[in-house]
């Protein structure tokens, strides 16, 4: 279960949301630029602290200001694909993907085989030992995705994870992620501007505006045309 009920003062407005998503479903966050979507992911990951409220994922309470509990970032077990990737610039593609496993002290050989297994289907084998500074934008995003998936996280946080991918890889990744989520039965939060992502992966959709949830529901409900100008635009985009 995802249960996010937090207040946090941002620069221009107060982020004030109360989101509940049933067990192992995927939450899709939609909204205009600057609405506070990335901030929610940061709060869940523990990179920011809410002013008040709580965040519970599955059976764990990540943070609860009333109970004064707060699990440190590294113990939350989140797989976070950052909007700007945040690849470690001093490491190769391989080292980036392997990093999380190394931190879990997984044996070398296991890491090696697991990384190759992940990287193969995404065509990263040929840049495996390149420094991440010398790979293309889309390749960076794939590495960021694999790095987050490699640790077999308890929750996935995906900030526009497919925006720089080419069409083929986008489709492929969408399928792959769907399979992973279904089989690992882990909750996830996906920020996207792409309706296809929402349709393919989303169970619950929240539409945000200036720090507040203005519309939420499951995919079918939300997609009934005319419910909100933002969703409208999503459709009109399809048509253009």
């Amino acid at each position: 279960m995802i249960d996010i009920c937090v207040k946090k003062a941002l620069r221009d407005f107060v982020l004030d949301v109360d989101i509940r998503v049933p067990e192992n479903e995927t939450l899709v966050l939609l909204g205009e630029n600057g609405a506070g979507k990335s901030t929610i992911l940061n709060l869940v990951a523990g990179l920011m602290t809410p002013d008040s409220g709580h965040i519970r994922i599955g059976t764990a309470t990540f943070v609860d200001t009333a109970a004064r509990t707060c699990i440190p970032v590294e113990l939350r077990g989140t797989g976070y694909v950052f909007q700007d990737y945040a690849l470690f610039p001093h490491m190769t593609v391989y080292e980036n993907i392997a990093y999380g496993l190394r931190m879990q002290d997984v044996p070398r050989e296991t890491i090696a085989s697991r990384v190759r297994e992940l990287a193969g289907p995404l065509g990263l084998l040929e840049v495996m030992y390149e420094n991440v500074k010398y790979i293309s934008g889309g390749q960076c995003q794939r590495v960021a995705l694999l790095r987050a998936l490699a640790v077999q996280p308890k929750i996935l946080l995906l900030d526009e994870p497919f925006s720089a991918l080419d069409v083929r890889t986008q489709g492929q990744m969408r399928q792959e992620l769907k399979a992973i989520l279904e089989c690992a039965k882990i909750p996830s939060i996906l920020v996207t501007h792409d309706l296809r992502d929402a349709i393919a992966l989303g169970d619950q959709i929240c539409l945000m505006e200036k720090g507040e949830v203005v519309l939420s529901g499951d995919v079918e409900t939300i997609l009934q045309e005319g419910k909100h100008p933002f969703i409208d635009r999503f459709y009109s985009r399809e048509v253009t």
Partner: protein
Amino acid sequence: MTQTMDRICRRGNLPLRILIATLVGLAVLFIGIPLAALLLRVPPALLLASLQDPVVLDALSLSLVTAGISTIIVIGFGTPIAYINARCQYPGKKIIDTITDLPVVLPPAVAGLALLMAFGHRGLVGQYLDLLGIEIAFTTIAVIMAQVFVASPFYIRQARTSFAGVSRVYEHAARTLGAGPLRTFFSITVPLAITGILSGAVMTFARALGEFGATIMFAGNLQGKTQTMPLAIYGALQGDMDASLALAVILVVISFAVIIVIKTLTEKEEADT
């Protein structure tokens, strides 16, 4: 072909490049000429003779050992300070920051006196250490303390700047991947700041190797125990200038070698950043 085109593409800035080359040339000459004057003055035979003098060998090994230990100590204590000051805001930060800088402005002889007044056997703290039977002044430990005192700011300053230059985004990413603060520090922050850290360490080592004034005041000058190369050089300078210069040349050559070796060892990292 590529190279030629690269050169053509950069042709536009010829005047600028000449100006820069001139500035660099002048600067290198300014440092190079005195060094050359030093090297030219010393006959190689004297150099070889000096290298067989047990006094010189004692001083040389003492210098290298103490400067090495000092550098390690400075890294050990300086790194947390540098990191804290680069990342955290706390009351009194600016003062701590400035205190760690102050040893640079103290003329070394005064720094040595201050150390003596603090840790000598009549000193502010030293008198109590003395009661415990701990003697610091005029021992090899004093040499190291003098070097640490005088050379630490160079490391701390540079490490601090380098840490500040590491974007927190990477540390955050590491944390979400399960690395605790310490592992994040060693696997992410340090490697990303490594050029600056090494550069600071080299500076500290070099400064410790050249340290004279504080050492003579606080540690004294006893062959094999506290007589480092600079002390031996200064001592010889009172008698035979050429012998003294021979020692100076030995010091310069060895430092040159040490620095070049460190640079070569760390070249890969530098090339990457």
